[in-house]
């Protein structure tokens, strides 16, 4: 891959495809203006995960309450309800006397188009495989039935943060704070532990795994990110155990220094680009794009959170500094999307310098969000994002509301 060529082509793309976006849809139940959205139980309806399937036909939305809603694309490009189901229930772990939340941490769709779409959902401890079947309903129309086909449980002592399908269509990995397991989709009784960073002495624990992702095409490569800002790439071909990573990416230059340095370098999301040539990592203040051949510095650093640097103290006080923001690539691997506070989100040119700041808000909303420079509304955050695999349609999750935005094109009737 010739990086210069990629940058050149990307910039050509940016020239002819302006990054202008407009509101398309909002879903979620409108708040009663008089009710306080911080009442107990109200957080149940907060979105916790978003994922488009490989064709873009479906958008899955996972919630804190364990519910998953699947929307399907209509002819006019909007999304309507297709089906919904309860994915996980909360459980009580008797051994640790703790409740296992039903919150859906991540949803991933089976990578190959199938007449019966399948998706993996996971909470802190259990991963489930669901399949959606269209059946003839009672009145002759079609109804959608969602069936849990497999339950992968009992393999994680720590909380699961991600799942990722392998391009072989046969296996997937599940990742918790300290370990990564490799599963076969047909076998729920066994998993292989391929990465284990648990220290012999837990007192020495200083680093946890925060996210992981398989390469979209190579069945042997995957990356995982850590709380120390490291990204490690492992090769399944080399050996049965991947503790000895093949590559380690670390940005040693970007330092704001000071007390908060460590807290802001933790990586909240790491993803391969859809073409498999680059990796993006989202830390608290930036997104970094990595060329897999260069381990000691990122190819580009995309900044959009500089306005937060003077406010880090406040953000630490209200725990917002620990927020985990997701990021998403667009289908041609040229643009990136990530969320922020004040319901803001940013669409960034990965190989250019342009950043489009947007605010997720219904156009007719009475109460718009303040500009972050005026007043930082840390409770209004867009943590979850997803980008349609082939079209410029993006999905954002902000508390209990989901937003869909589309890119304005010249063909726009407006």
């Amino acid at each position, binding site marked *: 891959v010739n990086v210069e060529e990629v940058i050149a082509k990307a910039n050509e793309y940016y020239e002819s495809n302006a990054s202008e976006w407009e509101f398309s849809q909002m879903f979620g139940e409108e708040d009663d203006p008089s009710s306080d959205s911080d009442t107990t139980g109200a957080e149940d309806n907060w979105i916790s995960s978003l994922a488009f399937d490989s064709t873009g036909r479906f958008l899955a939305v996972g919630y804190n309450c364990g519910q998953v809603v699947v929307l399907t694309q209509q002819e006019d490009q909007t999304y309507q309800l297709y089906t919904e189901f309860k994915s996980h229930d909360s459980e009580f772990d008797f051994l640790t006397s703790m409740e296992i939340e039903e919150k859906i941490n991540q949803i991933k769709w089976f990578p190959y188009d*199938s007449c019966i779409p399948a998706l993996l959902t996971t909470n802190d401890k259990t991963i489930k495989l669901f399949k959606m079947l269209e059946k003839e309903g009672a009145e002759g129309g079609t109804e959608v039935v969602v069936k849990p086909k497999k339950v992968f449980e009992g393999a994680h002592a720590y909380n699961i943060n991600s799942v990722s399908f392998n391009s072989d269509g046969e296996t997937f990995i599940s990742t918790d704070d300290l370990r990564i397991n490799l599963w076969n989709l047909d076998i729920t009784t066994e998993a292989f532990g391929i990465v284990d960073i648990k220290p012999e002495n837990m007192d020495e624990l200083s680093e946890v795994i925060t996210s992981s992702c398989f390469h979209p095409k190579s069945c042997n490569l995957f990356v995982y990110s850590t709380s120390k800002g490291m990204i490690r790439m492992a090769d399944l071909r*080399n050996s049965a155990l991947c503790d000895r990573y093949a590559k380690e990416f670390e940005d040693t230059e970007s330092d704001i220094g000071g007390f908060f340095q460590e807290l802001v370098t933790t990586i909240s999301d790491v993803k391969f680009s859809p073409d498999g040539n680059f990796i993006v990592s989202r830390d608290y203040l930036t997104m970094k794009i990595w060329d897999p051949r260069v381990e000691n510095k990122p190819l580009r650093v995309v900044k959009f959170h500089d306005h937060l640097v003077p406010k880090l103290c406040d953000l630490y006080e209200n725990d917002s500094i620990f927020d985990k923001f997701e990021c998403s690539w667009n289908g041609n691997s040229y643009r990136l999307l990530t969320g922020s506070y004040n319901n803001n989100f940013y669409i960034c040119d990965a190989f250019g310098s342009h950043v489009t700041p947007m605010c997720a808000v219904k156009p007719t909303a009475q109460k718009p969000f303040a500009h972050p420079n005026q007043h930082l509304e840390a409770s209004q955050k867009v943590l979850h994002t997803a980008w349609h695999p082939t079209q410029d349609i993006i999905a954002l999750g902000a508390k209990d509301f989901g937003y869909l935005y589309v890119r304005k094109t010249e063909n726009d009737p407006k």
Partner: protein
Amino acid sequence: MLPKKGDSPKEGATSEDASVRLTFVKNLSKTAETVGPDRFRDEIIPEVKALLDDDDDILLALADELGKDEYETYLGGAQHNHLLLSILESLAKVEETGVRDKAVASLSKISHRIPQESCEQHFVELVLRLSESDWFSPRSSACGLISVAYPRASPASQTKLLLSFKRSCEDPTPIVRRSAATALKKIVPLLDKASLLQLVESFKALSVDDQDSVRLLSIENCVAFAEKLSEEEKNSVVKPVVLACGSDKSWRVRYMVASCFTQLVDSLGRQITQTDLVPVFVKLLKDTEAEVRTAASSKVSGVSKLLQKDTVIKDILPCARALATDDSSAVRASLDVMGLAPLFGKDGTNEHLLELFLQLLKDETPEVRLNIIGKLSEVTQVLGLDQLSQHLLPAIMELAEDRQWRVRSSILEYIPLLADQLGAEFFNEKLSVLCVSCLNDCVFSIRESATVILKRIAAVFGVAWAKQYVVPKIVEQSKHRNYLYRTITLTMVSSLADVFPSSEIQSDLLPFVYTLATDPIPNIRINAAKTLNQLIPKLETSYVLSDIIPFLTDKLLTDKDRDVLYFANVALQNARKKQ
């Protein structure tokens, strides 16, 4: 849930309750027998079709059921077999791999019963339809059916089948390519030379596929191809693939080469093996990945048997010696060098192998030592007892005293084997003490195993031997202070009774049972009653009448414990049946 009189047999199929529907499927054969062929075809088959979008376990049961031979009769003859085909075709399209695989298996079974005239239309067309589907699941199932359809297809259809198979080898989804790679080895034996050569390109393409899971299936295809090609073609077509896989970047592919190595050697022949395969094997024995070394080391004997002795000494043995000190205990435990002994003969074994065996016999990991002991027979045949026994015994004794009870259990398993080879005298001297001490092991499982082992040895050495050596031990044991160890005596008695004639049972074994039947501990009395019950079928009727029944009646009247009474009663009833 059999259909009750008056019930319509098809009600089960439409029930809301999934378990009722499942029962309907499992009872399909009974339903068929009840209603007869005509009604089965007209009424029941449509109901079955309605189940086709049901839950996976129902579909799985259906796929399994319909493959059974009886359905031909239920349908009213071979001419109706095709009715099942459309149902199974739908099942072969299903997402769930388990259901699809079962459907493919059932389709294969049925295909043999379809009359030749209709085979083309019903079966071959079905396979072609599946292979042209838009979705990957049916395309994947089609691959598994091509080897079944091909022999019965017309020449024109055969061409089409091969063409669709070649397309599957290049399918965009890895799932289909994997099915194709798996199916290839079944298709190869069916083809004539010309068609075979057509598939060579596909074979090569699959062996360099991006996906590891596809490439690793190439090895078995190498074997299949090699069996049908000429020497020159093996060299030009198969050998390069084997060599490439042997140094593949993915350890899983190299693992496959190691585990299929003996088959590769067999199919490729001596010439290629000597010149090209030996270096590959040596490399695998030294592979960086322990899993690969484990697979290769388990094949050392198997492969060496097919090589010239000089090659083994020069190339293989040094590797074997290195493997005996490998870091990974799994590698050391799978090292199979015992089978080399016959190859080397007595002197050769002494010179080259004995040291290796002894080293492994002293390994710190029990599994390694167990592995050696388990494969001793080949060595003892060559070397004879004396040499071995002096080394073997300490190793056996140590394993028998290992802290982990599973290790002790494993060594016990080998004792009959050793007894057989080493002979009664040796056993009496050295091993009998061991066996008897296992009767006193703190773990019940071991005590129980010991009784079985002693029985097996008694079967080998004979009743006289048992009377002389085992029975006295039982006497001692039955007087043990701890009731748990007294109980095992009764298990020993039952066990030995299997190999003792009834007269000997009466004279030598029953006395213990009588004694223990009056033991102060109720548990023992219960077991005594149970033992008597087990012995009754083996005793002569006259004895049962004259001695057993009175004894039991005696106990019945006198025992205070309810459970003892119960079991004594059971034995009594059994005894009375003999009258």
